[in-house]
């Protein structure tokens, strides 16, 4: 299994007035062609920053890369030029976002926006292969149909506000897929949606992944949503990956205390729970992150070693990696 994306020891700070926020602290992740990876973590764990890093969307300053590499199809994205990005964004890697309303331009029609994306991709093609206006529009209609939007041709003339949340998310997915990317990054794609719509969108993503053989990185705080789509899950905490395993394995045998805590904190719809256990304390201030294991102040298993030595992400088995001294 060749890896499509390979992130190695990626460290990133955010420079602010208060000092440098150590946002990402040595991320190691890789993704194979056609693989679906969920990245789960709570607010401020750096999962969105990671996604934006892969897309080259982080403004710098304040972001500052300290070390590491993000290899995609044998290119280091951290060294990509503007021209490289033009060829990558939308055509090799695409992204969908959390709030479908704010990510669509309110004053342009759906057609203008979808066609623009397609038109932008023509630049990097040989002249002969470029599409003309009519072909672009036809392509736009096709990809809207691909995401199961009814009346696609008619939809092109509508404005975002005339669409429902679920439809908007589909449009965003369609735009992302228009350039036939190899990797789709989905940043909390269902968080802003209602539960019944969420189920529809998740089903759509799942379906597209199967049909188009896409590699997907889905970022969410919702373990349930991620588990529904992804084969593998990486759990992040305070800028580090603490556990990485296939979904079934992770749910059945969580090894990191944080992962366990997360699972225990989930209320269950089936059957009565007498108590719900949260994780004590709150996430650390990344300006002065805890020494050693960043989770140790909240960890029930923590000991002296945890507060001094940073646990490395180590392989427990062929498929299961965890960063904990006690696992």
């Amino acid at each position, binding site marked *: 299994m060749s890896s499509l994306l390979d992130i190695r020891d990626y460290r990133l700070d955010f420079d602010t007035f*208060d000092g440098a926020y150590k946002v990402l602290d040595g991320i190691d992740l890789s993704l194979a062609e056609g693989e679906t990876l969920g990245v789960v973590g709570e607010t401020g764990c750096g999962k969105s920053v990671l996604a934006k890093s892969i897309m080259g969307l982080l403004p710098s300053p304040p972001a500052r890369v300290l070390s590491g590499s993000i290899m995609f199809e044998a290119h280091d994205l951290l060294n990509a030029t503007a021209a490289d990005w033009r060829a990558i964004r939308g055509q090799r890697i695409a992204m969908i976002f959390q709030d479908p309303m704010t990510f669509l331009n309110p004053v342009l029609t759906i057609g203008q926006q979808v066609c623009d994306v397609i038109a932008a991709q023509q630049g990097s093609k040989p002249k002969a292969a470029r599409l003309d206006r009519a072909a672009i529009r036809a392509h736009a209609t096709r990809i809207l149909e691909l995401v199961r939007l009814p009346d696609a041709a008619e939809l092109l003339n509508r404005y975002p506000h005339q669409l429902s949340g679920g439809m908007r998310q589909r449009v965003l997915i369609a735009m992302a897929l228009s350039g036939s990317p190899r990797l789709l990054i989905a940043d909390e794609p269902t968080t802003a949606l209602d539960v019944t719509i969420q189920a529809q969108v998740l089903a759509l993503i799942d379906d597209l992944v199967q049909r188009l053989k896409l590699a997907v990185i889905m970022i969410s705080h919702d373990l349930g949503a991620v588990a529904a789509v992804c084969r593998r899950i990486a759990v992040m905490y305070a800028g580090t990956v603490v556990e990485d395993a296939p979904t079934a394995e992770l749910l059945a045998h969580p090894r990191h205390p944080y992962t366990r805590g997360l699972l225990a904190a989930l209320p269950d719809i089936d059957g009565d729970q007498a108590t719900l256990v949260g994780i004590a*304390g*709150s996430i650390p201030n990344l300006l002065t992150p805890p020494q050693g294991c960043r989770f140790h102040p909240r960890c029930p298993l923590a000991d002296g070693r945890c507060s001094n030595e940073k646990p490395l992400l180590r392989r427990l088995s062929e498929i299961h990696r965890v960063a904990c001294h006690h696992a």
Partner: protein
Amino acid sequence: MASDITSAAPTGWRARHAGTIRQWRLYAHLFRRSFSSMLGLFLVVLFLVLAAAGPALAPYPEDTMGAVHLDNRLKPPSLAHPFGTDEMGNDILSRVIVGTRTSLWIGLIITGVAALIGVPLGIFAGYMGGRIREVIMRITDVFLSVPGLALALAIVASLGPGITNCVIALSLVWWPGYVRLIDSKTLALKEELYIEAARAIGARTPRILFHHILPNCVSPLIVKASMDMGMAILSAASLGFIGLGAKPPSPEWGAMISVARSYMPDWWWYALFPGLAIYLTVLGFNLFGDGLRDILDPKSRGR
């Protein structure tokens, strides 16, 4: 962090206001970073120092109170008179310096009166909504639809020239801007959850207005007021230019230019320096206000 759970409430002033102090340090930091804001601050401070110490700094203080040196008329800039002398033989530098105080006074009163009228009306209109708001805002619109200068011109033309009338006229045309600002801010704040929360607690309207809404209006208010200081000074100078401003001999920049324009271009220094003083003062207040807005109210529109 963990030790916090058992700790007692902090007692020292510094500890109690740690958050505020940090906020202010952040403001200062952001402000310092911007060249144009610092230029604004510098000009404003210079202006205030000149206004405070004016007569003491002026090389010929008697020239600002109507001295007559007809033998020393219209002398070009020299060491003795760096800005030259005017048609009565008075030192222009001294008159420009002392004019600072007049301008400061004009700016303060106009913005102050305008804010005193505009803020309560705006907050009332915004919070009450409905008919009351409709009436207040329509009246405001009427005033806004007349260009301030034209209205002030009419007012001064009927009340007669002089700084006091000038200030009255400009104050009368200045307040609608504040009503608009505070009204829109109040409307926005009214939708804030914490206002709803305060109402849910049973807080009375005055408490909500003064405890919750007004403090949140302060930053746009400061920004607007600092810009208006400059604009008020400019407007007063414009009236002075038309000949409706300060009475002689008290030095006022607009009136000086009004006289000096007859002496262009051969006695260029006469019009140049008061004009520069107006320009730099207004520039200073505007850059300063712009800078304040960038740090206090980054989202608000650049009106």
